[in-house]
């Protein structure tokens, strides 16, 4: 091995580098394999020859379109509500804040089906608020596209809040103070200083939340049901097609997989390094 040329800098630091790192590399490789193998299996099992046909199955287009629309609306709501929430949590010194934070992250751990039931108990026809909504405005939420969005917000917002709060908390408090001495009130500081400065964190949190919303299944089917074009999002479409048209189901899964990898990969390489 010679050291001439730029390429030399890329060589492993020692011939034995891989060996001495084995106790790290081996488990990491097993971990990667465990996650990646099923994805590969999915690719292997896909009916590539007729992929185009499968992708033109009505369930595919319809459910993808619905997923695109609902997750977009979800993200708008999550940004609007979740960003101020993350900020207040990040800057609160109150001893109860830790518990408030835990409460907000509960949907992370709640089985989605239970989440769906809880949503029904709140917004359903006989729910705590739903009954009143129906009487006062004649609005019923379950079985509507709005219910899909609500289910997605319920499961996705905690991801966003937890992640954005982390970056906001590590923002130097002195920036807030400087903005205040310059005459910026809390809202203006939030808008013109905090948000722009934590943009990478917001991007990361958005990616996570969007991904979670895209994959959402249990709460959606429980709270919104499954009706093609109205409440049957892509994951529900996959489930519905799994037995009747497994190739379409796999094709649909592949599309979701590809889109997600693309979004996560782009975001992470752009923002997160």
């Amino acid at each position: 091995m010679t050291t001439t040329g730029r390429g030399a800098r890329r060589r492993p630091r020692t011939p034995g580098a891989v060996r001495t790192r084995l106790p790290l590399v081996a488990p990491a490789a097993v971990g990667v394999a465990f996650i990646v193998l099923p994805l590969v299996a999915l690719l292997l099992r896909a009916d590539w020859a007729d992929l185009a046909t499968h992708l033109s199955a009505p369930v595919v287009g319809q459910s993808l379109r619905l997923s695109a629309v609902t997750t977009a609306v979800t993200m708008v709501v999550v940004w609007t509500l979740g960003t101020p929430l993350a900020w207040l949590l990040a800057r609160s010194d109150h001893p109860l804040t830790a518990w408030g934070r835990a409460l907000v992250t509960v949907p992370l751990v709640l089985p989605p089906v239970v989440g769906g039931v809880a949503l029904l108990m709140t917004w359903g026809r006989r729910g705590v608020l739903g009954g009143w909504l129906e009487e006062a405005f004649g609005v019923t939420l379950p079985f509507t596209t709005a219910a899909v969005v609500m289910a997605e917000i319920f499961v996705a917002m905690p991801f966003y809040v937890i992640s954005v709060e982390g970056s906001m908390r590590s923002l130097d408090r002195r920036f807030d103070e400087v903005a205040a001495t310059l005459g910026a009130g809390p809202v203006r500081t939030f808008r013109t200083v905090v948000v722009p400065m934590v943009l990478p964190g917001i991007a990361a949190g958005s990616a996570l939340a969007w991904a979670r919303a895209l994959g959402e299944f249990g709460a959606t089917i429980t709270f919104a049901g499954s009706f093609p074009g109205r409440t049957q999002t892509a994951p529900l479409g996959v489930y519905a097609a799994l037995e009747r048209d497994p190739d379409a189901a796999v094709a649909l899964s592949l599309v979701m997989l590809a889109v997600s990898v693309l979004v996560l990969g782009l975001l992470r390489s752009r923002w997160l390094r």
Partner: protein
Amino acid sequence: MTALDASLAVRLDGFDLDVALRREHGVTAVLGPNGSGKTTALKALAGLHTLESGHVRVAGTTWADARTHLPPEARSVGMVLADPLLFPHLTLLDNVAFGPRSRGMPRAAARSRAAEELGRVGLAELTGRRPSQVSQGQAQRAALARALATDPALLLLDEPLSALDPQTRSVTRADLSHRLRDYAGVTVLVTHDPLDALTLADHLLFLEGGRVVQSGTPAEIVARPRSPYVAGVVGLNLVHGRLAGGGPPRLALAGGAELVVAEVPADARPGDELLATVNPAAVTLFTERPEASARNLWHLEVAAVTVTGQRARVRLHGVPGVELVAEVTLPAVAQLGVTVGTRLWAGVKATEVEVYPA
């Protein structure tokens, strides 16, 4: 009308600040050891700490008292810290325009005001740069421009030069001094650097442990420091003792040693507490006990050496009550073999000692 009239009582976990400050105009430098409460005082003025009691009145407006506590954004204040803290996502222009915009100025006006302020600190060419694209000194000047762009009634500077390397520091100090000359409000400048205090301020305030230990004009303070910290800042040795009775005029020091002096205040009686200063340059060092005219002579150990240019400051100790800094040339350091731990003879002529009441 007093432009700044503040009486600050702030209580933090384990720290009490109690400081009064009234100034009509000009620059007040606040000095003190680490943890003496300088930053706490500035934050209380800015509204970032709530007063336990006391008041802050600036240019006729009450910012805080028993019933009032204006938030920082409602106070006409500008603040610059050691770290410029420019908003990294904004250009210098937009950083400086941030204040005027926040106070309701339309965008175009705010920007032209910002451009003007940047011009006044010599950054007219860099308005379009991001903070990451300018040097530390430039960033600090931009921070100053930002703080002044809102025409604050009170300007608070917390060690604005301390994070700069020495060269940048003196250039930036000049810019700061230049810019402050045109500023009509009251400036409070926290610093550790005596030169800042002497070149930028017309009034000095020394804090220790949250209390004012000495205040006055630079000339008063340089002449008669009243605490070891203050003496250290102005570069003098300070000795504390009682006037001894009988014999030549001399001070009895705490550890039993004596300091012979030429003169004492006319009204001093034996037993009176007195302070005495000795210029480090007036301390002579010898490797052997000299047959010299110096009336004060001690055998001391070198505790520390610092060098500036071709001069070294040698800190000596080892005789109870006597702790001296001597200033010698670099060649002398080499010739005397001055390193930490060496024992040397230090002599001070009685005529070089200046005595005043404690």
